[in-house]
């Protein structure tokens, strides 16, 4: 059976996920998204994966949420408030979500996952480090290249071309 920490984390994560999409202001929405990401980090702690949980907090809560907040600040003020949505589309979206949840949930509950429990000790995070440097090293290098190219790409995209370089003009 689920314990109290699990229930509290589920309520926090799912509640803030809904709030992130439904708050009228994007600023409050991005703060609620931080709650969702932190809640998922809490789930990782419950699953005895402290390394992934810390990575999640450092990358998601620490950088992605702050990046989103700064982007929201760059946008004009009236755009960060949601206009009234088409109610038909909204109800269609809620119906799609419910059909999806009930369908996938029924399939999962019907499968054999319910009987899976474990008493084995959790994976040691030192094994993850060894895996990274032995078996997965090409993927690690590729990931570093992808991250640097993504940063260069984002900077190139966001660069303003209409500003004149003063030094070059002299």
């Amino acid at each position, binding site marked *: 059976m689920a314990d109290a920490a699990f229930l509290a984390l589920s309520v926090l994560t799912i509640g803030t996920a809904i709030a992130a999409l439904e708050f009228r202001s994007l600023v409050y929405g991005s703060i609620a998204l931080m709650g969702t990401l932190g809640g998922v980090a809490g789930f990782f702690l419950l699953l005895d994966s402290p390394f992934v949980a810390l990575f999640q907090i450092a990358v998601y809560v620490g950088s992605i949420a702050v990046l989103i907040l700064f982007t929201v600040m760059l946008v004009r003020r009236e755009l960060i408030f949601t206009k009234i949505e088409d109610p038909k589309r909204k109800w269609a979206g809620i119906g799609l979500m419910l059909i999806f949840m009930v369908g996938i949930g029924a399939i999962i509950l019907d499968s054999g996952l319910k009987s899976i429990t474990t008493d084995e000790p959790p994976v040691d995070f030192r094994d993850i480090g060894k895996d990274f440097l032995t078996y997965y090293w090409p993927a690690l290098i590729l990931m570093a290249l992808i991250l640097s190219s993504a940063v260069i*790409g984002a900077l190139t995209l966001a660069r303003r071309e209409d500003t004149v370089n003063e030094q070059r003009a002299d």
Partner: protein
Amino acid sequence: MSNELIEFVIVSVALLGIGIYGLAVKRNAIRMLFSIEIIINAANLNLVAFARFLPHSGGQTLALFSIAIAAAEVAVGLGLIIVAYRMYQNIDIADFRSLKG
């Protein structure tokens, strides 16, 4: 371990459903990025949960890769949103219609 695998999978399905709702309903580009983040987190939760119950370190490794790639994706996505905002003075994706035939 007092929690069962099925509970984590159900939370993950709920997050995935909320993300799909956001992608289907919201027309604000930044909110659609929120939905994508929620869906990626649902996937990561599944990976780590299955890795704990097998138990095998591969799931956690894959989750770490997934988090790093998601960070790159968000950086590029926000750059695209800023460019689109400069071109259209709006972040409503219903207005981004230059490619419409």
